């Protein structure tokens, strides 16, 4: 059934249909609508056989999820921004213990200065935590990704974040077609933990590993993370076959002319300029690049669906030796450039591609189609530096004169 739903509601309903055993809630914008909706469903019975726990912090939200998952239940929570950082220690811990918790991250900037609007700084800060990180381009994909996330996470014994742009997606209403409970029941196997706190088979979970075994533990975690790419692809393929629509995968290809998502789209040509992006800005890019394509400008679009594990091989294949690559980055590696750009650069090391990093949309700054077109054209003409800030107000904000700070003594 196609219906108009707010992104948060689409996610909440889909999560409920995945039948989590424990849902933890701690409010933080822009994630709150998701757990609010789940709290209603927990009371109406739409979310059955589930414990809904209101906790006192994000740190406890993740910790309760850890306990629940270790005790053999499917566990879910949602957070954003400062909340994700506040639970950071537990985020790493869940991954180290191999607990397949699924968490929505309603991507939001990190302060100071405090800012509740969208960018990707929060998820990027957790990029080495050992979680799968799946990015949604729109509300339909945000909802669908949760089904894939539970399936992949539980097969791998590894937690998964579904990242959706805060406000841009969470608070936007769009036409979606949600997977029904029956469809999900048929698609998603019941949670069978690889190890659990079981009184019939007592085990010790979370021991201390000394120098003689820590490296090997991390190496095994690394190998399993490499397996994750295949597992995500397999579940995404299965999802497409069952539901008849694209969601997830590693890298999203787009048709050269229509700019619609198209898994059959050929790799970019060396002469193409390819824009690489992640999240809701892909929709903006589809609109921004269409006139350029219509004018015959050889520009292509590639989306990153799985940021972790980072799909280096799939990205290289999609870029096909594209000479100019423009990466739209919504998180900043201070003093260096965009975070996504760094990953793309590593994937393209040794190739002839020239990479431009465009840092855009920090802290909710709208990313304008015209600005994106301008950036693309300048990059093609060779008039773009390797790092640019889109629509930066040069001189528009007061800047203290360097060296002129007076100190009262």
């Amino acid at each position, binding site marked *: 059934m196609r219906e108009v739903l707010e992104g948060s509601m689409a996610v909440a309903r889909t999560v409920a249909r995945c039948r989590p*055993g424990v849902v933890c809630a701690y409010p933080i914008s822009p994630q709150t609508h998701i757990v609010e909706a789940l709290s209603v469903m927990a009371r109406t019975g739409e979310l059955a056989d*589930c414990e809904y726990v209101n906790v006192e*912090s994000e*740190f406890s939200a993740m910790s309760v999820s850890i306990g*629940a998952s270790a005790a053999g239940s499917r566990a879910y929570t949602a957070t954003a921004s400062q909340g994700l950082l506040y639970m950071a220690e537990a985020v790493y811990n869940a991954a180290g213990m191999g607990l397949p918790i699924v968490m929505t991250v309603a991507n939001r900037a990190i302060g100071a200065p405090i800012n509740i609007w969208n960018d990707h700084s929060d998820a990027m800060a957790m990029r080495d935590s050992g979680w799968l990180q799946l990015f949604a381009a729109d509300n339909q994909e945000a909802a669908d990704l949760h089904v894939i996330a539970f399936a992949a996470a539980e097969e791998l014994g590894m937690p998964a974040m579904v990242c959706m742009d805060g406000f841009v997606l969470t608070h936007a209403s769009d036409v979606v077609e949600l997977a029904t409970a029956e469809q999900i029941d048929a698609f998603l196997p019941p949670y069978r933990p690889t190890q659990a706190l079981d009184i019939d088979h007592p*085990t010790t*979970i979370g*021991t201390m590993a000394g120098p003689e075994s820590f490296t090997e533990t991390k190496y095994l975690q690394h190998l399993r993370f490499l397996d994750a790419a295949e597992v995500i692809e397999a579940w995404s393929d299965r999802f497409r076959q069952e539901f008849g629509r694209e969601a997830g995968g590693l890298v999203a290809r787009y048709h050269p002319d229509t700019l619609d998502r198209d898994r059959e789209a050929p790799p970019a040509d060396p002469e193409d300029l390819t824009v690489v992006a992640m999240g809701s800005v892909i929709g903006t890019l589809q609109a921004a690049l269409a006139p350029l394509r219509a004018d015959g400008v050889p520009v292509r679009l590639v989306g990153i669906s799985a940021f972790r594990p980072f799909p280096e091989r799939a990205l290289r294949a999609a870029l096909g030796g594209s000479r100019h690559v423009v990466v739209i980055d919504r998180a900043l590696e201070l003093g260096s450039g965009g975070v996504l750009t760094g990953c793309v650069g590593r994937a393209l090391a040794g190739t002839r591609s020239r990479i431009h990093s465009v840092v855009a949309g920090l802290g909710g700054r709208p990313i304008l189609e015209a600005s994106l077109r301008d950036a693309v054209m300048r990059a093609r003409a060779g008039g773009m530096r390797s790092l640019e800030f889109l629509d930066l107000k040069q001189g528009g904000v007061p800047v203290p004169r360097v060296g002129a700070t007076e100190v009262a003594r």
Partner: protein
Amino acid sequence: MSTVHIPFLQTGSLAVGGRLLEDDDRSVQSHADRPSSLTKGHRACQGCAEALAARWVMDTAVEAAGGKLVVANATGCLEVFSTLYPESAWKPPWIHSLFANAAAVATGIAAALHAQGRDDVRVLAQGGDGGTVDIGLAAVSGMFERNDDVLYVCYDNQGYMNTGVQRSSATPASARTATTPAVGHQPGAPVGQGKSMPKIAMAHEIPYVATATAADLRDLEHKVRTAMSIHGARYLHVLVPCPVGWGSAASESISLSRAAVQSGIFPVIEARAGELTDVQPIRELADVEDYLRPQARFAHLFKPGGEVALERWRELARANIRRYHLMGERS
């Protein structure tokens, strides 16, 4: 030749074994088939009262739960000395996640078990004073406030012993630690009297709060059994002398526990729904010096300049005796 008077105490709370008692009246520990939940081979220091108390607590809880007990453990001595990979000294299903989150992990386990319809499986969380009164306080308070079905046990050795004896907010005033050295004009811990977690727990009006020591096995077992007979949030606070951190002999952990109680320094109580319901009266009033002198962390109290701090200890003991009616009859 001198003679030593040995009291014949095979009954009552001073008897550890109670082997002359009827089987049902014996302590859990006096049974040959006790669960030994924290089994041999762990790396606790000699004289560690935490290791002793944890085994006693766990065995009683396992027995009360009919063997169906799951344990969440905070980071700390108890975790480090018992679970260095690939070995584990724990028999029940046991999980360690982080320093500050044992209470929340336990909540998650309890929530999952309830959702699975497994309310017959009971949940116990445990940690030291650092993981409870300091870094873990928010999670413990949250678990209390939600009245989650968890028994939380704090083994209080009054400092961060695992990291090398630094001050925690359970460290009493004047105690020497690695971060409150016994130098300067106010040697030792400069402020406070040690945060009272039992009072904080009582303020949450949870179904059951109790304190105990490693000096009184039967009292400890009684309190664990009582706690296990109740569903909801429960808190047990056990004083556990630490020879390394306290600078006491390994052989003195039990006598120091007893001196803490008999001097009035550590009230042994029970409370239900925020109301004090039972207080263990002092048997034979001990001087606070019986508790303080054997501990090197208080050595400066008995040197010139230590009089003021020593007097504060006497005041604390008097205040406890007054507040908790420790010299009265058992109610």
